[in-house]
Every structure is written in C-alpha cells, then in structure tokens.
C-alpha cells in the first residue's frame, strides 16, 4: 500500500531555505558556546616512521596557549581496533598528514601560530604510495565496500572473448579524488567530567556529519562510554558527499582535546589542506574492461577487473566493478577487485563509491564496442538489456534503462549526432555528442525509528535523527509525514540531526529518504492506529522501519541515461560542455525541486570528475600537493552551462510505501563517460584516463 499523495510529489520549497540564505542556520562550528577553546592540529610531515622527539616549549610558551596534546600525554582510548580512529595513541606515523598532536589556545589564530612553532623529529622509514597494476603485492580483499563479493566469474570469459567477432580490451583509469564539501569537517566537543546520562551527557559534540547516531556509537566505543552518555548534534551540514558518513580522526582528536581542558568546549575545523589527508578520498582506479560481442552487437562476454589502493592501517576496498555484474546481458561475466595497501590516508566513501569510477570504464568501453560493431551506442545498449538480473536471476523491480535512453535521445536531439567522429566543426571548434548509461542500487538500511507527537491545535512533531546534508531531507521528510498523517504541510514539524532523537541510519547510499521516509510512514500509521484522527494533546507513538519482503524477491536498481554535448577548441584543446541531459528512472520522486537539485548536482560533479578533478599524490613525499581550491580544480559556474535532468513518471511498487528508490548518487554515475564519449565523437580522440584535459586533445 502506498501513501496517498497530497504534498508528496509537489515541489515544496525547502523548509530550511530561509534560515540558510539569511545565515541564521547554525552549522557545527557556528554553534555559540561559552568560553570556547580553539584547536589546531599538528600533522606528520613524513609518510611512514615514528615521532622521535617533539619540542613544544616555544609553542607552550605563547600567551594564550592552553595545552599541546600529543601521543605522550593524550588520554588512552578504550578501543583502538579502528586504526584510523586510534588518534595520538602511539608514536607511529602511517601516512603523511596524520595527526600527531593538537594545540589548544584561546583563539584560533594563537592555536595556529603556536602549532607552527612545534618542532618534531622523526625516525623516517621508506614509504610507498604509488598504485600500479603491475605491483606484486596486490591482494584480494575478503569483500569490497557494501559487503559485496570481491570476485565473480560466470561462464568462460576467456573462451567467449577468443570466439567473439568483435572485442574491446582496454585499460581505463580514474585518479585519486577528494570529496571537498564546502563546509569543512568541523566539530565542537564538550567533555563534562561529572556528566552522565540522564542528567547531562558526558560528551557532547556539535558536529558536521551525515549520521549523528553512527558518530555517537563510534565515539562511545572509542572512549569507553555507553551511547547514552554521548550526544551528537548536527542540524545543518554544508555537504558531505560521503566524507562525513562516519566518524573520522578529527572527531576523536576534538574529544581528546576536550578531555585535556575538561569543561570547556573545544572548537575544531579542519583547514582545506587538512581535509586532503584526514577526511577520506576516492581511491585511484585502474580498470581493465573486456567486452565481446557477435556481429549484431549481442554481447557474449563482459569482464571488469579493477585495481585500486587502500591505506595500510585500514582497508577500504572500493566496489568499482560491482555495478557491471548486473548491467548487461552477456552470458560470460567476470569481475574482480585487487588492492594495494599503501602508506596513504584512509580512503572512504565518495559519492557513488563503486559506480562513479566503475561506470567510467564500463561505459566508455561500451561506446568503443558500439563503434567496433558499427552500431549506435543506444542501440547497442538496447540489444543487451537483460530481462532479469543476470547475476541473481531475480526479476527487476523496474528496469527502464532503454526507456531512459530513448526518451533522452528524443529530448537531446541525438539523431543530429555526427556519425563519423571528428567531422563536425563550428568555427574553430569540434563538436560532438556522447551517451552513457547510469545506475545505482536501491538501498534501505535497517535501524531507524521515528516518533510522532501531537502538540494540540492541529500541530504534529515528527522526530528522527536523520541528516540533511543539503539534499532536502528536512523538506521531503516533512512532506512524507504530512501525507502519512493526512494533514497539511504546515501542521508538521520534523526534528532531525540530534542523537537525542530516535535512531536513524546514515545519509548515504542514496538511502536516506527511503529508509527514514518509510520509517516515518510506519510511525504515522502507528500513531493513527492508536489515536485515530482526533488525538489528545501529548499523544505520542513511534515505529521502526518496516521490513520490505520484496527486497529479497526483486533486483532493485535505479537507472538513467546521461547525454553530453562537447565543443573542443581545435587550437588549444579546451573543452566546453554546452549541454548535459540526464533522464532517470528512480521510482517515485518525492519533491521535484530538491530531486532536480540532486540530479543536476550529481551531474555537475560528474562534469567536474570528467574534466577537472585529480588529487596529485607526490610519491616522493606521500601527500597530495594540489591540496587547495586553487589547485584541486572543481567545476565553477562558468564550466557549468546547460545541465538538465528529467525523470520517468513512475512508482516502484516493490520499493516500500513510498515507491521511491533514492536519488542522491545516480546523477554522477556515467556522466564522465558520456563526456568522454562526446569528446571522442567530436575529435576522434579516445581518452581513457580521467580527467580529460586540453593537453590530451592537442594536435
């Protein structure tokens, strides 16, 4: 049964919009607190070895400095199993930029100045940060991110490739990338030695996070507290893109700092430089993609083998090739992931981990296969659209990839695409079009609970510890609750972003709206079941996220088609993208306004990935050398011209009470491939390594 639409499906303006544009919304670091202390971290300037000596006399002597905390005197942690979070517990340095201390002072300027006065000596050991496909120490992780199998092998890819009339066998690479949300990772930590639930929490954190409850449980474990002794508050978040999906080392550092000045709040905001070594990143990938097909373009083999890095201290294996397992109907399929553990910072989630880099390789290879078969790339994809999930054998809950491609082709004017690459000129520019498929799985994570309370006079409050990281969660959850309660939008206040609220899962995996939304629907129904339509003031009822038996019966994925037009300057190789169009099939769209923003935001990030983003790891030092916004290039307004997104009008009846599958990540998937394919169509030059920069297109 689905919810009766009233405000769901309408473009409600953001409920938090006014607070944000007027500057009233208090982000973590903005939180007014009494008598704050400011923290500035000390970071290792070697990539591997030990801290031999720390001379902090000069720093400690600066007026206004309260403490310099290092491994020598930091509080011992109760749980050090997660090495990323085992902050200041030993003299060991595992990557350049790692925290080796923190300076606490009365102002941020004093803290930063004093941090610069600390002299550190090291026993340096040789480090190794370079990912290559020919490394002899590549290993197969037990599983890859998301809990997926590391390798799959169905049929006989080698035999199928040998027998195929048409083949593609190429290497595609994507660089190390950093999430770079606008708001840096910030936290305000208050350690209350006398505190203890329920009077006052022992530890309070005003944080910028995608999940207050996971930060709470992680920090409770690390500091040996019960979760109830910790409160994490994060009402507004200036972007995360996965990098705020879990607690990172700065959270632990802030708490250690707060313990050193117990009672006073400690404010810590990472600088942009620091974010390049301490807040996660996307691994570089080296992908070999092999495709085989008969003369008619019917695929017989698909193999996608990914090589990537992780850090020595903590494994994060990006699921680069997983999306390929269910994408096309080839009987012989193989995927694998091999990982090098290097002396690098800890990689983590970055928007569409797996699919974002993986669909660059796969979808450029598909374009190459289409050319080799003499087929239109859309026709090739249509001929290989599987009727059921090739991997699981399950029926699709709704696979409308071909509809997206055809709809997009009509809207984009695909028939006008030059058939022969490099043949269309407009003045001094070469013009071309490209297409790529997009997909993202339907995730709904268990563990959320919502509570509905009636305050009288028609006013309801819905509480759930969800996170709005700029996505529109405040708004869509209000819409969902209003419809589920059968009352006007203005009658409902949603409370999110506080671990004191009922538990909620992470704003990640494009799962927020479906997980929290279905939980809210369940809570609203429970409320009405108990109290009917005329509840007494003070009435309160809650419920947990309902099971969805269909999740086991169907293969559930969103799909999309990405189109791009490019213009390449024939003299300089400069690339412009005058038009992008995404057509998506995502189940029901709860709010067209915020959904469109998610789609075009993802596509813009894909444009940025295609042409600009690259973290340059200097292997001599082991750190990212282009670590600021002037050097790590992200698309500016001037790069983004006409980016448009539309979606199929549909509902996935198997996707729970909302009929929605999630929209946060699919916009980036395939966007870079569409641009690369358009660049090929414009110039005849096939670029298989991101980013696509002007020098690669010079003649």
């Amino acid at each position: 049964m689905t919810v009766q639409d009233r405000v769901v499906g309408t473009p409600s303006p953001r409920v938090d919009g006014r607070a944000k544009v007027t500057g009233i919304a208090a982000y973590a670091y903005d939180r007014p607190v009494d008598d704050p202390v400011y923290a500035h971290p000390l970071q290792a300037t070697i990539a591997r070895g030990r801290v031999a000596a720390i001379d902090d006399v000069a720093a400690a002597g600066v007026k206004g400095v309260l403490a310099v905390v290092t491994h020598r005197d930091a509080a011992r942690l109760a749980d050090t199993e997660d090495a990323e979070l085992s902050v200041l517990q030993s003299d060991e340095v595992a990557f350049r930029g790692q925290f080796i201390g923190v300076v606490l002072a009365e102002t941020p300027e004093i803290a930063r100045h004093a941090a610069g006065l600390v002299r550190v000596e090291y026993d340096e050991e040789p480090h190794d940060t370079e990912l290559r496909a020919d490394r002899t120490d590549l290993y197969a992780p037990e599983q890859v991110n998301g809990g997926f199998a590391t390798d799959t092998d169905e049929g006989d890819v080698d035999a199928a490739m040998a027998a195929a009339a048409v083949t593609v066998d190429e290497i595609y690479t994507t660089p190390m990338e950093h999430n770079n949300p606008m708001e840096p990772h910030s936290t305000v930590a208050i350690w209350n030695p006398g505190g203890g639930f329920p009077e006052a929490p022992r530890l309070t954190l005003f944080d910028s996070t995608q999940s207050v409850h996971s930060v709470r449980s992680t920090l409770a474990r690390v500091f040996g507290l019960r979760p109830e002794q910790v409160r994490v508050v994060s009402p507004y978040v200036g972007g995360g893109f996965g990098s705020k999906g879990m607690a990172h080392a700065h959270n632990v550092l802030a708490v250690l700092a707060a313990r050193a000045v117990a009672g006073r709040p400690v404010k810590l905001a990472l600088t942009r430089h620091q974010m390049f070594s301490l807040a996660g990143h996307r691994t570089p990938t080296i992908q070999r993609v092999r495709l085989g097909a008969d003369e008619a373009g019917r695929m017989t083999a698909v193999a996608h083998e990914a090589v990537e890095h992780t850090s020595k201290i903590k494994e994060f294996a990006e699921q680069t090739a997983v999306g390929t397992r269910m994408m096309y109907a080839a009987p012989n399929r193989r995927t694998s992931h091999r990982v090098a553990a290097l002396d690098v910072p800890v990689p983590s989630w970055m928007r569409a981990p797996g699919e974002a880099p993986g669909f660059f390789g796969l979808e450029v290879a598909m374009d190459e296969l289409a050319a080799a078969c003499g087929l239109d790339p859309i026709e090739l994809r249509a001929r290989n659209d599987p009727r059921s999930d090739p991997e699981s054998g399950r029926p699709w809950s709704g696979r409308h990839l071909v509809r997206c491609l055809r709809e997009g082709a009509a809207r984009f004017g695909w028939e006008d695409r030059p058939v022969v690459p490099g043949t269309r000129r407009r003045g001094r520019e070469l013009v071309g079009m490209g297409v790529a498929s997009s997909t993202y799985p339907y995730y709904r994570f268990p563990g959320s609970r919502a509570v509905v309370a009636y305050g009288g006079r028609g006013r309801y409050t819905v509480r759930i510890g969800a996170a709005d990281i700029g996505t529109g969660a405040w708004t869509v959850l209000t819409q969902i609750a209003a419809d589920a309660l059968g009352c006007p939008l203005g009658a409902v206040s949603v409370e999110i972003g506080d671990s004191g609220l009922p538990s909620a899962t992470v704003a990640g995996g494009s799962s927020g709206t479906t997980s929290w939304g279905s939980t809210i629907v369940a809570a609203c129904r429970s409320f009405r079941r108990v109290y009917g339509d005329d509840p007494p003031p003070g009435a309160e009822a809650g419920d947990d996220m309902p099971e969805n038996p269909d999740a086991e019966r169907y293969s559930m994925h969103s799909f999309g088609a990405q189109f791009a037009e490019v213009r390449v300057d024939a003299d300089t190789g400069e690339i412009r993208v005058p038009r992008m169009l995404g057509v998506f099939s995502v189940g029901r769209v709860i709010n067209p306004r915020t959904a469109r923003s998610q789609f075009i935001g993802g596509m813009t990030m894909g444009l940025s990935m295609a042409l600009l983003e690259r973290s340059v790891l200097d292997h001599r030092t082991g750190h990212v050398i282009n670590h600021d916004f002037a050097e790590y290039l992200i698309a500016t307004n001037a790069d983004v011209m006409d980016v448009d997104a539309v979606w199929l009008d549909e509902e996935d009846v198997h996707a729970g009470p909302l009929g929605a599958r999630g929209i946060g990540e699919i916009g980036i998937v395939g966007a870079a491939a569409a641009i690369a394919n358009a660049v090929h169509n414009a110039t005849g030059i096939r670029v298989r390594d991101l980013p696509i920069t002007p020098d690669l297109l010079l003649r």
Partner: protein
Amino acid sequence: MIPFEYLRAGDPAEAVAAVAERPGAVFLGGGTNLVDHMKLGVAEPDMLVDVSRLPLDRVEETATGLRVGAAVRNSDLAAHPLVRERCPMLARALLSGASGQLRNAATTAGNLLQRTRCPYFQDVTTPCNKREPGSGCSAIGGYTRYHAILGASEQCVAVHPSDMAVAMVALDAVVIVLGPGGERALPLADLYRLPGDTPQRDTVLEHGELVTAVELPDLPFARRSAYRKVRDRTSYSFALVSVAAALDLDGGTVRDVRLALGGVAHKPWRAVLAEEELRGKPATEDAFRRAADAELAAARPLPGNEFKVPMARNTIVATLRDLTEEGR
C-alpha cells in the same frame, strides 16, 4: 600566522620609510596573496604597512598614454573605458584572472608583485629554493603541469601567475617606483627577473621600494589586441599558457606586433624573437607559426609539461589569426 604590527600609511613617503627601516616589514595592498601566505606560513612579516588606501587609486590620461595608480583595483581597471578602448587585451587579461571577489580587492601593484602559485612554494612542508634558498626545488621531478618551459633554472621552475602583467609587458608598460632615495622609472619587463641562482627574488625591487604607478604608453595599434588564456578550468584558474597580442597590419603585411606569453616562465615573457620574425612578413598562419617556433625554439619543458610547447605555439597562432581580418 605570526603576530605582526599594522600601520596604515598616510602617504607614500611614510610607507616607504616605514618599510625601509624594518627588515621584516612589507607593504599590504589588497592582501589577496599576502594574507594567504601569512596563514600558510609562506610569508612571516612582523609588520604590515597598508598602502591600499593611499591616494594612488586613479587612472589618468597623460600626454603619452595612461597612468594607472598602484592602488587601482583590478576590476576598476578592467572596466575603465580608456583601457577597454585603447588596449582591450589588458581589460581581457584582467578579467581572465582570479574571481570577481578577488578582482574587487586586488590592486594593480599587488597584481604585478603577486608570487608564484607553485604548490611546493605554497607548502611549507616541502623544500623550495624560492621560499628557503638552498633547500632545493621540489617541483623538479614533481608536479610540473603549471611550471616553466622558458628561462627556468635548476634552482627554480616556477612561473609568474599574473595575467594583467602579460598584457602590460606587451604594452611596454613602465613602472614608477618610490624608494628611500627617491623615485625611479623602469620598464615593467625589467622589473621581473629570471630565477637563476637567486630564485627568492622575483623582481629587482629593493626592500622598501614601493610601486606607485604603472604608465601605459599610447600604442595606437593596441586597439586591435587580444588576450587568450588557455586553462584547465573556465574560470578561477591559472594559465597553462596565455598570449597577449597586438597586431598592426598594412594590408596583408605585419607592420608591427606586440606579443607576450604567460604561464611559461618566471616572468611575463615578452616574445621578442617572434616579434622580430613577424615584422614585415605576410599576416598568414604560416608566418605566425614560424614566429611562434622562433620564440619556442629555446623552450625546455619538464617531464609532465611538454604539452605547453605545442599549446603555446597553437595559441600564438590562433590569437594572431583572430586579429587578422579573416579571423574577425
């Protein structure tokens, strides 16, 4: 950032005296580069002498051309009607630099004297001869995408980041400098120096010398001029290669030409060899290419920026072609 004193100078002479007598003092203009460097520990002045509010903020017409006050903001200079009319390449160069907010704050002299954006120079955890003489050059053997192909040394391969200065060098701009001993004028092209063995010095200015104005001699044919900046990102990024060009045509023949390159050297690079090669030649693509090749014969790219040589050649040709009648 180390603690520092701040003085707002009342007039240029006071500013010069204040800086000259104190080795750790520096001038503060718009602060768009200096303040970054203070945060990063790249610059550690113990005194800032603020010259941004001195009465040096006017663009004046003189008998020989334009005189631009040192404190004129980049956005104001770009928008000035006489600049737009007489030397469009300067307006375009200014507008291709930085971002709107930065151009509103940055001053003319500050733009000229901004320091390289070599990431190793800006990262105090890596050796850099420009920041710390004798410590070594990290860019050599490192990330060189934005580094020099002309005039570099084994001590330093950094490039000058300004766009404005490239157009001004092409225009034969003259810099007016006030020092403790009085005023002097020197061609902008001579203000800058190649790194050689002393890459810590970007310019020939002595400590305490203050740029007070830039004179732009009237160059009638600069009305037909252009600035072309090739970069990875469409806005707010430094040049891979840029070209400032003015062309004086006599029918189909090049009577005179001004050509300067950005993003290729430790200073804005006046392409003297190319200019010589072109004068008196037909304004054809072949001739433009030969001129570019003449200039770039001395190019010594680094591993990782070899592309800059063909990119510079193509950009010179394209910019000149656009200035011919056919290109219009």
